[in-house]
């Protein structure tokens, strides 16, 4: 290329030029400046008319595009002089990936084929993104399903969601007519189902986001409450022996919901009528009446930030929390020992049957626990060896399944059943440890901080998707954003006050958003594309239709449990 360029110089400058040879003629440069290769990204504000047929780009953006195009022909690849700087073309780093109850963070976007991540890094990223607060509900889910059933359901759901994820990853390759290199899964849905596909995928991803944010609010109130209580008890040297049944040893486990006429909300009642200071504290620091409101002052300002890139730096907290939880669970299991008895169908006083018919509650939770279908394409795009994508995805899913199994089984098995019933396992298993327990106090602090950093990110993603599609502008005005944030925060506060059952919230939102992204769309798109290529056979059709029916059943049966 440089050869011909020197020819062109001769043509343009006939008098001859004593310029120096322009340097390496190597087309396959390894540009340390990746900016020279990034695609020109047009922000949504520049798309002036969006209808299904033609999308027009604003004149300003189109002129910039032409300018960049032209400048790139003027320089050698290694030359930095005419590469668009970041303040002119927004950097592609504004790409976030998230899993509803896992982490959310910014991603370095490379064009296809330039991914720099080794398989190990990719697997870790998938594992890290998927794993999140749904871990806390897995033991409860196993309890609801029965031990044996629970384990089988976890493994089967893992396999099923893995297969659907594989379908998502392969969905782009079935489209041969259009260039799909920059597409994410909602773009594929739009290709097959038109604007219905676009709007429905937007709706379902909003369901998952808002469900996750509500769960976060409930959990944050819970953890903040317990943290405050721990600190208060620690300062005033109060020993918290209350009427809640618990085990009487150095590793107390409590059963908060087993009191007469147990309220669904977990307000703890302590009978220390003589101590008015404590009473005051109890009045102002109540898990469902006051603490959710205190959080508003903390988090609502954070939600109004235009760009949450600051929060994405705290992504490491998620990994640390999960590892700490694993450590915590292992430690407690060692301390408490195993308490398992196998009764197949009949519940006993302390144990639950192995096979229960409430197992759909577990499948609902797991749909959200194994959810990564909205961003798996982006995550795998950065894999260095693209041919290993399926293998790496399977390994990541296997690791996630193992983690869930490990924590769920250990918590379930080590739950001290002779004094307490297995039915006591809470929807958030940390609730089974009293607020005076140091190890769980640390876990709650970790999780509290982690959730406080992910919450604004999820809010930003929900805002970008909803406001971006409805108003065409991701930040139309402070009022739009404020109203949107108030709505989300309000939903969280209401749930925290009246229905703080995170297991319930997770399974409803999981089944709902999983219906679209996990079950229906991948299978339906596969069927349609096979049909277009005339490769549809009866076994495939039946199998995938069965998956769709499973997804529907998953959602419907949640309402009957």
């Amino acid at each position, binding site marked *: 290329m440089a050869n*011909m*360029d*020197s*020819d*062109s*110089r001769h*043509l*343009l*400058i*006939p*008098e*001859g*030029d*004593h*310029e*120096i040879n*322009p*340097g390496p003629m190597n087309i396959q440069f390894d540009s340390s400046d990746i900016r020279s290769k990034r695609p020109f990204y047009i922000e949504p504000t520049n798309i002036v008319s969006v209808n299904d047929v033609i999308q027009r780009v604003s*004149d*300003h953006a*189109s*002129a*910039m595009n*032409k*300018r960049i*195009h*032209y*400048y790139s*022909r*003027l*320089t*050698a690849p290694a*030359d930095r*002089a*005419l590469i*668009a*700087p970041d*303040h*002119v073309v927004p950097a592609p780093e504004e790409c976030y990936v998230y899993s509803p109850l896992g982490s959310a963070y910014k991603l370095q976007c490379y064009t296809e084929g330039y991914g720099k991540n080794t398989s190990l890094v990719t697997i870790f990223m998938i594992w890290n993104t998927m794993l999140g607060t749904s871990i806390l509900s897995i033991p409860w889910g196993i309890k609801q399903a029965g031990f044996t059933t629970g384990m089988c359901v976890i493994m089967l759901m893992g396999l099923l969601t893995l297969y659907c994820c594989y379908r998502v990853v392969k969905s782009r390759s079935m489209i041969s007519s259009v260039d799909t290199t920059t597409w994410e899964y909602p773009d594929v849905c739009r290709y097959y189902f038109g604007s219905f596909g676009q709007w429905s995928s937007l709706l379902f991803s909003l369901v998952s986001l808002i469900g996750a944010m509500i769960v976060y609010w409930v959990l944050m109130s819970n953890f903040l409450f317990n943290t405050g209580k721990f600190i208060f008890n620690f300062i005033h040297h109060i020993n918290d022996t209350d009427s809640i049944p618990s085990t009487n040893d150095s590793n107390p486990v409590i059963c908060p919901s087993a009191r007469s006429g147990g309220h669904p909300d977990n307000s703890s009642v302590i009978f220390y009528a003589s101590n008015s200071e404590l009473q005051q504290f109890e009045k102002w620091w109540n898990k469902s009446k006051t603490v959710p409101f205190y959080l508003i002052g903390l988090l609502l300002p954070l939600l109004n930030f235009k760009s949450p890139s600051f929060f994405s730096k705290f992504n490491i907290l998620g990994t640390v929390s999960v590892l700490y939880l694993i450590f915590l669970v292992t430690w407690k299991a060692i301390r408490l020992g195993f308490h398992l008895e196998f009764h197949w169908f009949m519940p006993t006083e302390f144990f639950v049957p192995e096979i229960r018919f409430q197992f759909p509650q577990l499948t609902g939770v797991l749909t959200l626990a194994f959810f990564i279908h909205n961003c798996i394409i982006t995550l795998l795009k950065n894999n260095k060896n693209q041919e290993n994508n399926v293998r790496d995805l399977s390994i990541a899913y296997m690791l996630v399944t193992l983690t869930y199994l490990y924590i769920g089984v250990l918590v379930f098995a080590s739950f001290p059943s002779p004094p307490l019933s297995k039915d006591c396992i809470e929807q958030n298993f940390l609730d089974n440890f009293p607020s005076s327990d140091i190890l769980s106090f640390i876990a709650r602090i970790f999780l509290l901080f982690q959730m406080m950093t992910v919450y604004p990110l999820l809010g930003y993603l929900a805002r970008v998707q909803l406001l971006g599609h409805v108003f065409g502008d991701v930040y139309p005005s402070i009022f739009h954003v404020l109203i949107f944030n108030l709505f989300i925060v309000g939903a969280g506060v209401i749930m925290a006050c009246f229905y703080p059952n995170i297991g319930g919230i997770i399974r409803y939102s999981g089944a709902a958003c999983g219906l679209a992204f996990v079950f229906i769309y991948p299978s339906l798109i596969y069927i349609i594309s096979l049909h277009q290529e005339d490769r549809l056979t009866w076994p495939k059709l039946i199998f995938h239709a069965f998956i769709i029916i499973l997804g529907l059943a998953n959602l419907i049966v949640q309402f009957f449990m």
Partner: protein
Amino acid sequence: QGKSSPDAALPRAELGPSASPRPSPRQLRRVMPNTAMKKKVLLMGKSGSGKTSMRSIIFANYIARDTRRLGATIDVEHSHVRFLGNLVLNLWDCGGQDTFMENYFTSQRDNIFRNVEVLIYVFDVESRELEKDMHYYQSCLEAILQNSPDAKIFCLVHKMDLVQEDQRDLIFKEREEDLRRLSRPLECACFRTSIWDETLYKAWSSIVYQLIPNVQQLEMNLRNFAQIIEADEVLLFERATFLVISHYQCKEQRDVHRFEKISNIIKQFKLSCSKLATSFQSMEVRNSNFAAFIDIFTSNTYVMVVMSDPSIPSAATLINIRNARKHFEKLERVDGPKHRLLMR
């Protein structure tokens, strides 16, 4: 000390102003073989202010390696880009740290500043040495006053994209005032530019517009031409740079950036053509809504005609353009030697 042009013996001492105030044409020709009768456009500014990129973009050159840093090639005929037919663009780093360059510059001052038609001085808006910049600018102005007092002066405040958007007007106004003040008695026109928006193209288009002596007459003729052939829009481009010299439009057009876009598209196309050892001559673009023709017009201009009536056959428009060509060339020649700019 690096290589130098085979013709230049670098007789620094002899050509200093004290030695011989006006070197004979023969001597001049020995040092600068081709510039005897050519007028110059000087593009000057501090090193690193963006002149090379600017030249590259406007003239569609492959960007040259920075020769000053290599210290070597000091050639008065630094860049032979032809412009408006008869002008030659010279790029100079003014106020660099290199003492060798400084000496050469000082000793060659008269040669450099002789026969200058246009001085374009580039200021880097981010520069931390405003005093020094102004000092060098003033010394250039002195040289211009001595050697080419009729030259037109343009100041470009460059790299404006690095300034916050809300401060740009303010900062530019400040600089403009300073420069106007410093330039007296000479008149200078100031522009603010950045290669990342349309301001660079607009500034150079304004410069070219001011360099064309009979531009009003040209515009009137262009309008008549457009009305006769029932065109929607007619543009006249300078040949080397595709800067718009003048244009006529019969109704409001939506896209204000269209001139720069067309210029960029054609320059890019020219680069591609040159790779195949061909040169761009003409282009016709047509669909059911419009037809556009880009063709060589006079010896130094290109014309672009946009017709929105697709029923008019191409041949008719092309014949019209061909006939107009003769008229416009006559127009250029009629204006005599004074307006040598548009002549070969």
